[in-house]
């Protein structure tokens, strides 16, 4: 790696975060709100990317982690009357536990088997949401509009429904996820994860316990995804089974593939492009998913490493 790469990376990431922060002052209302959502979902994709992009493990059950955070936080608010931050904290703790537990079992497999096992766990989580409908309210889900109290910091109170609060909370979440993922990738642990992705047997031969490293990656990945789910519940006031469905596991895969697998900015780029692609094309035709699919196929053929991957390959080899 270029010795100046960490410095360049830090400057780029800082630039991106400053740009996103300043964007809120010029965006029209609709795009202001849309970007809030994109940053929360991009945080979910950042979590997913740690597992797929840097560890080489493709999960089809990540909606389970997202919905664990979302439901635990939502249920704490809806059924137990907790305020946002304690509910978020409990959601985070439970997601760490669930991620470790699922990882401990799923990582006994690898390759396609890992894909299938995570898919099965994801479906189990989805069906559990439907089965325990007295808590989850089944397919319909529930809203937090009435139950969620404003966030009180000192003498100041912030409403979760306030657009500016929403944007800045989403920005903060994304900043935390982005910085964490960059620190990880630039750290010795991150180098080991990349080594596992490239050649697990060789990494084992070098003396690393790859199982533990993979468990760490899956736990971190699941935790960031769950954190995004918790924040989504608080900022957008809705908790529903749609976030536990398989589509919501496939979504971060598509966002990451589009933006660039194994690039820390790829999830943000992919999530943003996909969101706006659906938004624009659905205004023209009801066959918008066909158009989106065709564009994705073309992109995968033309730039199999994703947009940020292509930029890294051609112009910015230091890009993490």
């Amino acid at each position, binding site marked *: 790696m270029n010795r100046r790469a960490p410095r360049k990376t830090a400057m780029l990431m800082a630039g991106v975060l400053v740009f996103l922060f300043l964007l809120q002052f010029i965006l029209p209302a*609709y795009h202001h709100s*849309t970007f809030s959502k994109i940053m929360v979902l991009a945080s979910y994709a950042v979590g997913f990317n740690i597992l797929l992009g840097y560890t080489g493990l493709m999960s089809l059950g990540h909606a389970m982690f997202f919905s664990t955070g979302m439901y635990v936080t939502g249920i704490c608010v809806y059924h137990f009357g907790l305020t946002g931050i304690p509910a978020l904290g409990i959601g985070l703790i439970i997601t760490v536990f669930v991620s470790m537990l699922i990882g401990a079992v799923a990582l006994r497999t690898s390759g396609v088997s890992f894909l299938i096992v995570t898919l099965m766990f994801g479906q189990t989580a989805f069906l559990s949401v439907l089965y325990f*409908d007295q808590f989850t309210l089944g397919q319909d*889900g529930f809203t937090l509009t009435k139950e969620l109290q404003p966030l009180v910091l000192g003498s100041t109170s912030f409403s979760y429904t306030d657009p500016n609060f929403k944007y800045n909370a989403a920005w903060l979440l994304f900043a935390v996820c982005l910085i964490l993922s960059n620190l990880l990738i630039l750290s010795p642990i991150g180098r080991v994860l990349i080594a596992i992705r490239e050649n697990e047997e060789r990494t084992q031969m070098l003396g690393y316990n790859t199982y533990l490293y993979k468990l760490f990656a899956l736990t971190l990945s699941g935790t960031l995804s769950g954190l995004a789910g918790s924040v989504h519940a608080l900022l957008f006031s*809705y908790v529903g089974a749609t976030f536990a469905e398989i589509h919501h596991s496939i979504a971060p895969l598509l966002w990451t593939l589009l933006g660039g697998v194994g690039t820390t900015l790829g999830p943000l780029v992919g999530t943003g492009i996909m969101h706006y692609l659906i938004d624009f094309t659905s205004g023209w035709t009801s066959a918008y998913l066909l158009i989106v699919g065709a564009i994705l196929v073309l992109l995968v053929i033309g730039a199999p490493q994703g947009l940020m991957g292509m930029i890294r390959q051609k112009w910015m080899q230091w890009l993490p």
Partner: protein
Amino acid sequence: MTENEKKATPVQEEQKTELSRRSLFGATAAVAGAGVLASQLTDPIARTAYAAGSDAPIRIGFQVHRTGIGATYGKWYERTTNAAAKYINDLGGMGGRPVEIVAEDDGTDPKRGADVVEKFATQHKVDFVYGTLFSHVVMGSSPRAGELKIPYFVVSEGHHVASGKLNRYVFQPCITEVPSQIYAVSKWMFSNLGKKVAVIYPDYAFGYDHRDYSMEAAKKNGGTIAAQIPIPPTETSFTRYFTKIPRDTDVIYHVMVGPGVLTFVREMGEHFGSRRPEIFGFIDSLEGVDINSPGLDFLDGTYFWEAMPRYADGYPTAAEKVYRDAVGVNASGASKSDSKDVSTYSHMFGCWETMFAIREAVEQSGYRNKRDYPALIETMEGFTGFNEGIAHPQGPKVFNGKNHQCYGNQFISKVAGGKLNVVHRTSIEDGMYDSDVDYTKMSL
């Protein structure tokens, strides 16, 4: 008293007198009855002239299920909405302003639903959001409508609005919700088909309403629920569930939806043969499906709930004929241009009627722009019902301004001769229940 309040309709006038619930229903029914008579004689809808010059169209954001699981409904909801908009515009629009429909597909997905509401309010800058059917999309979208403080009129039949879970900006003014439907038809079912009922329902939210409220209905009507059999939404084979039905069951009450329904009916026929109990279903199972489809023969002699009879002779009023013609449906409930394109007739009337309810609220509140939302919402909350007529061809409605939900008549039809034949029409009172939900206590 404001100028708007001075313009109260006869229906609103009723609210100003202190009446008992029973006398209120009676009075409402009388007004509604008068409306029926009037509608048979002449078009009761006042025509208004477009105000000249400065009046821009009233833009209604239509959240439509063009894709996803609700696409069949969405197609007919869109046709009905466009027909209603055309009819209203031919009458002079809303408050003298033309109506413009701005449609966006939500993919029958709550995630996208909330985005669509956002887009309507902040990008398209519509006056109202309207038209959502699937209850999980309503649940996902309504918080955003409340945050954006934009009136959101749903046509969903879900219990979510009346349950008090949503907010003051959400109304369901023209389609009866599921618990009320169940109470209304259960009374007839327990009286006429039998007291021991086995309930088969899809194992998700829509089914749970039937599971829970059929139990309450059984208690009310001296019946018993012999078995409650949930079927996972992904199930493709049903015979093993039929073995769970006790032998002495009088009635099988089924609410199946989705592509498995044809297999469900065929396997039910193979399992029970001619020695079947009475069978009562909800037409949701067969909305958009030809009753003469291969495999549905076993339904002959069984009963269905319909909110509005699919066949023209089921409820042959002049208003119904006007509505049926306007939305392009033939006497058998299919598209006039394609007899294989069967409508979702028991739900889509809600779009037509909701458009007219919006019109009434706009005109009575004197709505001009978004600053008038509080007046419009308070006006809507002041409504106590809607008269039957071209604006409300399904029948009269009682509207509860506190829980933002309407209650109407339901129909029970028997399958015979390859069609649905109406055998009973419930009263509005059959579906009423006490509600302590009061959205009017929420601030605007």
